[in-house]
Every structure is written in C-alpha cells, then in structure tokens.
C-alpha cells in the first residue's frame, strides 16, 4: 500500500516538465507584463486663483481645493475617447488606463475671471465655471480630437492649444467656438505630435512639435510667421521675455531665438533633453535638464555661469519664491537655489523617492504644491522645507 501511495505522490517526468513549463510561463507573464510608462496617467500641475488651487487629477477630473478651509470641489469626470486601453490596459489612446483610472490630464489648468479650462488625453477641451465647476462648454462638441498632452493658454479672449494630430487650434474662450486651425506640416517638415504647451506674446503663438521644429504662428489667423528647426523633439513650454524666446529641445540644446523672426541668438548644450520650461530671473536663465542638472546661463549670451547637480532627472517646471528658484526632481527631491548667494539647498524629499513627479510646481503663500503620482497634492513649506499634510485628489474610483 505504501509503495502505491509513494508512486502516486511521485510526479512523472512529463508532469515535472509540465510544472516547470507552467512556472516559466508565469515568470514570462510577469516579465512580459506592462512596461512602465506604457499607460497614460497624466501630470497636471496646479494653478492658484483666489485662494483656490485648480488641477487635473489622474482620475480624469478637474478638482478645486479651497486653500483656506481645504474644502474640495470637483467637476464631472471626463469620459474616455473612442479607443484605447486594450485588452490588458497597455494602449494609452483615449485616456489613462492605469488601474482603471480616468482620462489622463497633462496640461495645467488655465483660468480667467469666470472660467477654468483643461484639455484631456481623450482629445477634448473643457471649460468650467470657476465658482461651481459646472461645465460651460466642450470642444469638440461631438467626437474627439487626437490626445491633447500640452496645456491650453488663453489670451485676448482666445484659447490656444496643440494636439497629437500635429495641428494647433484657436477657439473662442467664451463659447468654445472654433476659430482657426494650423497645420505644422509643410514641404520641408512632416506633421507629428504636438505635446507642448504654447506661449502667447505680442500676437504670436510659440509652440514646439515632436517633428523637431519650433513654430511661431500669428494668433489672428493661424498663419505661420517663422519656423526654427532643431535636431530633436520639442516638448517643453517656451519662455518668451523681452523679444526673446527660450526653448529647450530633445537634441540637448537650450535655444534663445529672436521672437520677431526666429533667428538664433545663442544655444547651450546639456547632456540630456530639456523637458521643463526655463525660468528667467535677474538676467539669468535657470534651466532644469533631464541630465539631473540645473544650468544657470547668462540670458543675453547663453554662457554658462553656474551649474547645480541635483543627481536626478528634472522634468517639472520650477517656481520662484522670493530670491529662490525651487526645483523638484522626478524622484521627489525638492531643492532651492538662492539666486543672490548662488547656493543650493535641499528642502525636502517626498516619500524617499517612491513617488514620481513630472508636472509643473505651483507656489502660493510660501507653500509649494506638487502633484505626485500617488493621487496626492503634496505641500512643502518653501522656507523651511517642512512637509505639510497632503490633499487627497482621489475620489476612490
């Protein structure tokens, strides 16, 4: 009897091979699982107006926090586009699909006296009443454009944005009516995705494209003023000050261009892409780079005055607090550069690098607001670096 039971217990050779095969398949399934960065999650920054911060969450809705009493208001969750997600949630088209979350929102909201605007990865632009976040209008009213990654900008009653279809659009900011669209394709340049936020100055819209070209369009009718070809995709937001456009590219250069005609003033080469918008203070450009360094350049000549090695990639747009420029690495380390003393200080580290920070920083009343990948709005004292209580962005969906 014992012998029989022993025999039964003993796996046959075929059984063993089958078991190992299954084990290998499990290992394979884990290895072949979704690779990080396949799903569109979103990294909208916050914008403060009248003691209220507005930002787009990873659950696909505009949220407003009253910073005095911390009460929360939310707009209706925006719906996913026509396609995407795929059987295993690995296609980001139409909206984020990380853990069944909502439409990804990348652009920081833009506000006017009455309205707040956001653009979704589902290819729609939304306008909400500032008071109660009720929807005022949606563009397009029916159907969807290609995903919108950059933010929207409003100027002189017109709203501007670029889409992944390679077109830039102008809408009536009050009604959402279509005004004009401009194609980035020409004889010399193919059309590719626009993932950047535009900048508007003196009747000109400046925007970069992943087709490696930087454009200037006339805001009146969308006609092209000039183009500036680079060697890499342009996804950063341009900085336009005193007739000069400062723009970073994936070719590792930060360019200073004449705003009037797009001619090159100077260029500076780093070791990786420029993703964040540069900051100008006291005649110096502070440019955060994905090589983990902040470069301090002479705004007039482009010569390097200093560099600070933060050791981790920088994707977030910096903010200014008194004489300090505040930067945040993708791993959540917050640094302050004192522009007067030219010194670097680490303010805080959020969750020991367990979170990811890609969106722009916001600052209000000495508090830095950081949208982290764990659906929280982190708060850090800009003076002391003390980490304050976080605001919960999730609605538990």
């Amino acid at each position, binding site marked *: 009897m014992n012998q029989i039971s022993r*025999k039964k217990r*003993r796996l*046959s*050779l*075929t059984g063993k*091979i*089958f078991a*190992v*095969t299954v084990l*290998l398949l499990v*290992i*394979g399934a884990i*290895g*072949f699982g979704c*690779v*990080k*960065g*396949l*799903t*569109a*999650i979103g*990294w909208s920054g916050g914008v403060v107006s009248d003691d209220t911060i507005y930002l787009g969450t990873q659950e696909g809705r505009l949220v407003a926090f009253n910073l005095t009493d911390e009460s929360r208001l939310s707009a209706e969750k925006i719906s996913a586009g026509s396609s995407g997600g*795929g*059987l*295993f949630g*690995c*296609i*980001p*088209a139409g909206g984020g699909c990380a853990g069944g979350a909502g439409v*990804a929102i*990348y652009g920081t909201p833009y506000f006017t006296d009455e309205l707040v605007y956001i653009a979704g990865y589902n290819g729609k632009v939304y306008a909400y009443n500032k008071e109660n976040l009720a929807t005022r209008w949606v563009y397009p009213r029916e159907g969807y454009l290609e995903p919108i*990654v950059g933010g929207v900008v409003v100027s002189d009653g017109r709203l501007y944005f670029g889409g992944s279809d390679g077109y830039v659009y102008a809408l009536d900011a009050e009604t959402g009516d279509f005004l004009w669209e401009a194609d980035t394709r020409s004889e010399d340049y193919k059309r*590719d995705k626009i*993932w950047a936020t535009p900048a508007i100055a003196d009747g000109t819209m400046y925007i970069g494209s*992943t087709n490696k070209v930087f454009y200037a369009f006339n805001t009146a009718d969308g006609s092209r003023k000039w183009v500036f070809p680079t*060697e*890499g*995709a342009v*996804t950063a937001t341009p900085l336009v000050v005193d007739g000069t456009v400062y723009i970073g590219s*994936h*070719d*590792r250069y930060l360019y200073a261009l004449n705003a009037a005609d797009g001619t090159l003033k100077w260029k500076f080469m780093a*070791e*990786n*892409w420029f*993703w964040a918008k540069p900051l100008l203070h006291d005649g110096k450009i502070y440019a955060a780079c*994905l090589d983990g360094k902040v470069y301090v350049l002479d705004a007039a000549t482009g010569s390097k005055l200093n560099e600070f090695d933060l050791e981790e*990639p920088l*994707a977030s747009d910096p903010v200014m607090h008194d004489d300090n420029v505040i930067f945040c690495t*993708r791993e959540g380390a917050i640094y302050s550069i004192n522009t007067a003393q030219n010194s670097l200080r680490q303010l805080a580290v959020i969750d020991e690098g367990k979170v990811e920070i*890609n969106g722009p920083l916001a600052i209000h009343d000495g508090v830095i607001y950081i949208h982290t990948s764990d659906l929280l709005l982190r708060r850090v004292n800009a003076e002391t670096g003390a980490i304050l209580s976080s605001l919960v962005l999730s609605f538990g969906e």
Partner: protein
Amino acid sequence: MNPWELIIQQPLINCLIVIASVFGGNFGVSIIILTIVINLAMLPLTLSQIRSSKKMMDLQPKLAELQKKHAKDKQKLAQEQMALYKETGIKPAGCLLTFVIQLPVWIALYQSIMLAMAIAPEGLLNLSSYLYHWEAVFNALPLSRSFLGLNLAEPNFILAIFVGITQWVQQKMAQAPSTDPRQAQQSQMMLWLFPMMFTLISISFPAGLPLYWVTNSIIRIIIQYKLAGWGGLSRKPKTDEGGRDKKYVDLISSAERKSTDEVGADIVITEQQQQPSKNRYLPGKDREKHRKRK
C-alpha cells in the same frame, strides 16, 4: 537604474535606436533587424534545442514500446525511460534549460521595444533615462512608428492573426509525437492555447510587439525547417497499418519478432500476421472468398 536595466535593457534600447537611425528612423526595420541579430546570437542554443527535440521525436517508437511493455508498472516505466534517455544521450530537461536561458533575453527585447516606442508621454519621459550620450541616439528620437502602412503604436488585427498562425506553425513543426494519451492531449492543448493567447495579447498591444513576435516565429520556422524539415507539420498521425505510423513499423516489428519470453509479453505478433494485405478486411474480395468456401 537596476542591474537588469543597466546591463540588458539600456544596451538593447540604444541598439534599437541606432539601427533605426541608420534606416531613416524606421522603428519597424529596427525591430526586425534586432530580432534577427538576437536570434543569430542565440543560434547555438536554438540548434541544441531543436536537435534535442528531434532526438526525442526519433525516440518515440522505443518509448511507445516501453509504455506497452510496462503499462501496469509506472515506476518501472519511469526507470526504463530514464535508462533509455541516458543510453541515447538525451536530457529531457535540456530543452527546458535552453528555454530558461533564452527567456530573459526575449523578455528584455520585448521590454526594450515597448520602452523605445514611447507610446504615452510618460514612456517618452522615461526613455530619456536609458539613452547613451551619443548624438545618433538623441537625433533619432522620436522614432517613426509607421511601417508598411502599419502604425506600430496601435494594435493591428491582421498582424495579431499572423502572430497566431506563425506560432501555431512553429509549434506544430516542433511537436514530438506522443504515445501517452495524456501527454498527447497536453501537447495538443498547448498547440492551440499559446497561439490563441498570443493572438489575444497582440490584439491589445501596440503593433510593434506583434511585429517582433511574427519575425521571431518566422526565423524559428526557417531554422526548424533547415534542421529537421517540416517535423510535426508533415507527420500523418496514423496509417492503416494497425494504427501505427509507417516509419515506426520496422522498429516495432523487430521487438515483436522476439519470443514471448524475451519481451515478457503474452502474445507476439508474427511477421506473417504483420502483413497488412493479409490481415485487412477487403469487402469485395472477402465476400467472394466466403461464397466460394460455401
């Protein structure tokens, strides 16, 4: 960056980008070329795997014989099978070991393709941390996802079907015939299960991944064909000869020619009985014979 990313993923991603830059930024061409290169690098392992499978196929008649002989004693059967494997120099776990070595490479290639494609904005941002400081790498990005009319960043149904077909063909070619009904059932299940599974995954993933799978399967089919012919694809499972495969009849009959004492069997089929024409029931002729006898 962890060791896996540093040693495996980063070089592969940069290779993909450099190859793409040589071919005008075409990512589809880059996927195909790198898959071919990786397959060539793994050729010794692949060849040993195929040879081992072929040996296993050739051994099936002997295994069948053992199965028949020790049908009631499974322990004895296992011992005899192991002895036979040892005698012929086959390591049944050898195929598996080769697979174990190859698996991480395929996983790495898959991950690199998905990362280099940078479909979502997060993917593009993450890609920046994998790049070598080479001008060719920086200037090649973002890669063109258009290949032969396909958008490699979006799922493609036709390519997904191709994945299923090529995987089925490859598996069918490599499949060893089995005399054990349970094993045969398992093999049959795997033959359909994997291609169907990969087809379903391909429908959901960006077309760049199915392109890699199809290329991989085609290369494996070619190698398999050169080394072992069509294998299981050309094999007819049964013939009229007593339900046996034609090529195994000779091998089996040698065992059957032995005496009952030698093989320990109760009944031994003689060579005469083995002649198919004499044993087979032939409706027209037999009926005539029967009438004549009457």
